[in-house]
């Protein structure tokens, strides 16, 4: 139908000739069409038959929205920290070491009430967790994918996205807020290779850093030396990045269901970290598993326990100021004021 003609199949718009052999200027179909337009224009109604001045599309209806529960930016974590203590965890490790897998497995364990000693209390980024976990839902005609989670890619390449989860500890009914960043392995890689640390600055205020390492690589004679060296270099970079008190380090070794980390390898990593005056607690985990002896999620409860074990204690509010007998405080006072 051409512009302004009410007759279905009108050809004037394309061929400039009317198929009904009417004169386009006086054709009753066209004339009626334009009359309709004029009538509508008077009513302020929206029509789409191309009359001049009328809106082409109806304006979209604005629906109110709730703040989405996707990954949180640093500012949101800051805001949360104003009202309560949030345990910030830094998660570093090579690409495909299993960082996202740990997070997905943690989420699925709490959603089945299977995280030993802990239960779910709240999450400000529930849909983000759901999205990560759903990565594992897309199966290829029944074959589990080689990687259970989707490779992490950031929409914003300069800012980390945090997942928030609040867990309640059953033993004392205390709840802990965790801010867990889901970072691409490339960020760790760039940090090690070229010291690119602008987007990892939040590590300075982290309570704990998980150094995630693939257990299969650590048990492979050809690959392990490289992995151990990278961990050492990562430690050196952290030393340079973090001024003041170092967050506790936890070495998270994944794929516990397939390989048991060798004592010798762990000792070598410890030596490597010790070069930079650092030490790490070792937790072996299996976020996913086919081995019934090491069920999926094996070790994640230990990882969470280790993460909160020694939530950083503040300086004593009223430090003990009683003079000890041998202390010559008065002499020191005079010396200080000289």
């Amino acid at each position, binding site marked *: 139908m051409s512009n302004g003609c009410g007759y279905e199949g009108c050809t004037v718009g394309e061929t400039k000739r009317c198929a009904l052999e009417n004169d386009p200027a006086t054709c009753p179909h066209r004339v009626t069409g334009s009359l309709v337009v004029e009538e509508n224009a008077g009513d302020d109604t929206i029509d789409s038959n191309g009359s001049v001045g009328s809106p082409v599309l109806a304006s979209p209806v604005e629906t109110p929205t709730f*703040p989405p529960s996707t990954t949180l930016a640093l500012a949101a974590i800051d805001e949360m920290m104003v009202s309560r203590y949030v345990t910030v965890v830094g998660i570093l490790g090579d690409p495909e070491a299993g960082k996202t897998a740990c997070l997905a497995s943690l989420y*699925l364990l709490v*959603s*089945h009430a299977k995280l030993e000693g802990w239960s*779910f209390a709240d999450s400000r980024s529930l849909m983000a967790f*759901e999205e990560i976990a759903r990565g594992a839902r897309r199966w290829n005609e*029944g074959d589990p994918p080689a990687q259970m989670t989707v490779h992490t890619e950031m929409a914003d390449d300069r800012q980390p996205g945090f997942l928030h989860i609040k867990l309640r500890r059953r033993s004392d009914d205390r709840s802990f807020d965790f801010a867990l960043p889901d970072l691409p392995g490339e960020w760790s890689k760039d940090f090690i290779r070229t010291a690119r640390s602008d987007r990892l600055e939040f590590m300075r205020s982290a309570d704990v850093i998980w150094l995630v390492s693939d257990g299969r690589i650590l048990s492979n004679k050809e690959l392990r030396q490289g992995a151990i060296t990278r961990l050492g270099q990562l430690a050196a970079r952290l030393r340079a990045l973090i001024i003041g008190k170092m967050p506790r380090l936890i070495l998270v070794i994944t794929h516990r269901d397939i390989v048991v980390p060798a004592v010798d390898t762990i000792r070598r990593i410890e030596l490597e970290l010790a070069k930079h005056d650092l030490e790490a607690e070792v937790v072996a985990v299996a976020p996913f*598993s086919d081995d019934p002896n090491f069920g999926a999620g094996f070790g994640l409860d230990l990882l969470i326990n280790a993460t909160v074990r020694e939530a950083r204690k503040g300086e004593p509010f009223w430090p003990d100021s009683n003079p000890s007998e041998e202390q010559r405080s008065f002499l020191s006072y005079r010396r200080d004021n000289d």
Partner: protein
Amino acid sequence: MTNRSVILLGGPDSGKSNYIGRLWPALDAKAGLVIATSQPRDIGYVLDTADHLFQGRFAPRTEHNEERRDFEVPVALCDGTHASSIVIPDISGELWQTAVRESEITEDWMDELKAARGALLFIRVGSDQDVRPLDWVTSRKLLAKVGQDDDRDKIPTQVMICELVRYLELTMGSRDDSKPRLSVIVAAWDRVDPKTFDEGPRAYLGREYPLIAGRLLDTTKLDVSYFGLSVVGGDLTDDPEFREQYLENSLDQHGWVAINDPKTGLWSKDRDLTRPIAWAIGA
């Protein structure tokens, strides 16, 4: 007289419509905590729903995209005080589902949520619309055999309910006046075994929907109370014997709410189906 609206939330097939259908006869019988003071102007919708129950059937699922239907009824407490009018908008479970998926809701529903006095949250035992969380943590091999199915892209029921609770906190929970109340109703409570009944709906949620249970325990913006609900006191679909017996008597003699005695901590059946409403409007 004040207008107090009570919002009904819950996924598809969670028992909202059946409750409304049963609620009007309960209010009209004037035997419960909350009684109807006069006949509402429009009862067509509740009568339609109740009709299914009268005939010994549960109401079919509320159709998608239907017009919003409010059930507005002037009520008072049984002693005649607290005269108010409650508006119970029935929203199809699909609408809530879409609201969670898009984190969007239409203007008038947003206004309803902000102005609501309280809310009733429905979860039904054994609903076929229930979406379980992904379970490859425990049964990866089994899942590999089943392969792709439609449920994979759906939001698990417990995640959806947690989001709805968050919406309530953001709307009516953010008002400065008194803490709004939320009645958590586990429907089809007649289907659970005696042990589960004695443990109560809260323990049931902790086992079946750990995220919801944890979330409700953690909220500081809502005052939560738990109820078990059976609108007719049995299963009309799968229990022909019960159905026969049910049709013999009037609807008033059927249905109960499981309530908790705060002193003894025991759960018992109470014939008064208006109790969740009474809690939600602050009585």
